[in-house]
């Protein structure tokens, strides 16, 4: 079995998760504050990749970045950036695709924190940044763990978008989910099975681990 696709998938997931952790958590915090119409629209927009067909997303990314188009051509010729059929393109697509998996659970955790918690910190003269860092983020650690794991696993499973804009170039864009598809297509069922088992195992282990870690630790004496 060729481990390159698995390795590529893991790399893609790790990079995407890291970028989304750094950008998605502040975004979630911003979204968790008072409702306004633009914020609601933005939130709906962020949720879109969760429900949009990967083929739609892939299609528009393909259109945007294809050197056939003005914008893609400009990226291509002036900046030498290639977002179609390249690993960089996969990262970009994965960030869009997995964004809701990072933002939603974190945002909902922020919303459920009592507002007095941040306020208490403010009255102590602490800035928003310090409050976020020392009070709020530690309080929502389980949600962040969940978000990180879901993002990682979801990116690992990315298929439709990659198929559209990544093709299946070995070592570059042929990630594990595509390798499975290709193996099936070339009737290499044993291979497909191996890849599937590996992905299944990785995903199952991390999802289960998170459920167990996040389980409420305190037993109520009232039961």
């Amino acid at each position, binding site marked *: 079995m060729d481990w390159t696709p698995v390795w590529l998938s893991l790399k893609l997931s790790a990079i995407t998760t890291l970028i989304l952790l750094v950008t998605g958590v502040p975004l979630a915090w911003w979204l968790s504050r008072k409702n306004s119409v633009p914020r609601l629209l933005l939130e709906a927009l962020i949720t879109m990749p969760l429900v949009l067909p990967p083929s739609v997303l892939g299609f528009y990314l393909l259109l945007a970045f294809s050197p056939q188009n003005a914008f893609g051509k400009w990226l291509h010729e002036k900046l030498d950036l290639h977002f179609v059929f390249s690993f960089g393109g996969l990262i970009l697509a994965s960030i869009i695709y997995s964004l809701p998996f990072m933002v939603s659970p974190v945002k909902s955790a922020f919303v459920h924190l009592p507002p007095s918690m941040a*306020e*208490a910190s*403010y*009255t*102590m*003269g602490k800035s928003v940044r310090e409050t976020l860092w020392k009070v709020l983020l530690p*309080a929502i650690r389980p949600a962040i763990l969940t978000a990180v794991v879901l993002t990682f696993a979801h990116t690992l499973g990315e298929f439709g978008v990659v198929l559209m804009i990544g093709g299946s170039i070995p070592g570059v864009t042929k990630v594990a989910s595509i390798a499975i598809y290709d193996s099936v297509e070339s009737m290499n069922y044993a291979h497909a099975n191996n890849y599937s088992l590996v992905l299944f195992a990785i995903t199952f282990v991390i999802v289960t681990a998170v459920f167990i870690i996040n389980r409420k630790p305190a037993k109520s004496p009232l039961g």
Partner: protein
Amino acid sequence: MIEVAIKKSLNRYDGPGFLEVNHSFTDHRVTALSGPSGVGKTTFLRILAGLATPDEGTVRVQGATWLDTRASLSLSPQQRRTGFVFQDYALFQTMNVTKHLEYAGADGPYLEQLLSIGKMEAFRKHLPRQLSGGQQQRLAILRALALKPRLLLMDEPFSAMDNKLKMSLMADLKKLITDRKITCLIATHYPFETEGFADELFELT
């Protein structure tokens, strides 16, 4: 002196109402704020701390203007640095007792004194969820004091304590507040509850 002249409409569900306060609170004394549930005690304390804004009015604390809606001036909660004891305690879930106090202030011996006043020395390493309701409430009070505030705002600060504990805590607190010349406002359902603790009573209506 804390001179307050504010007005805020509260959209209560049983019809609209007003919170209107025109009063000067004496420095270095404890004033009990009483009034029926829903009258706006919490809202008033929040306005003083900079956590809520009235529709109009001014707040002047020992000469300094904290709020003046006409001049669009309002100091942030960070600038006001009031000691605030929240009705729901607002403890930090992931900090233990010591960390709470250290987050608010850095004066080691003083923090020790606070722990002893609150009878919390045995719980230094406990997280909020490992404390009983009464212990959580004491921690909230101690944390507000750890900040060494000039103005201490307490919202129903004794509601979860049993009587014996409350009496002993009140005595120690009273001494500390007097020593440190802290001005203190305390919102309460039962004015008689703070007898011997509050020097003055202000009724919200």
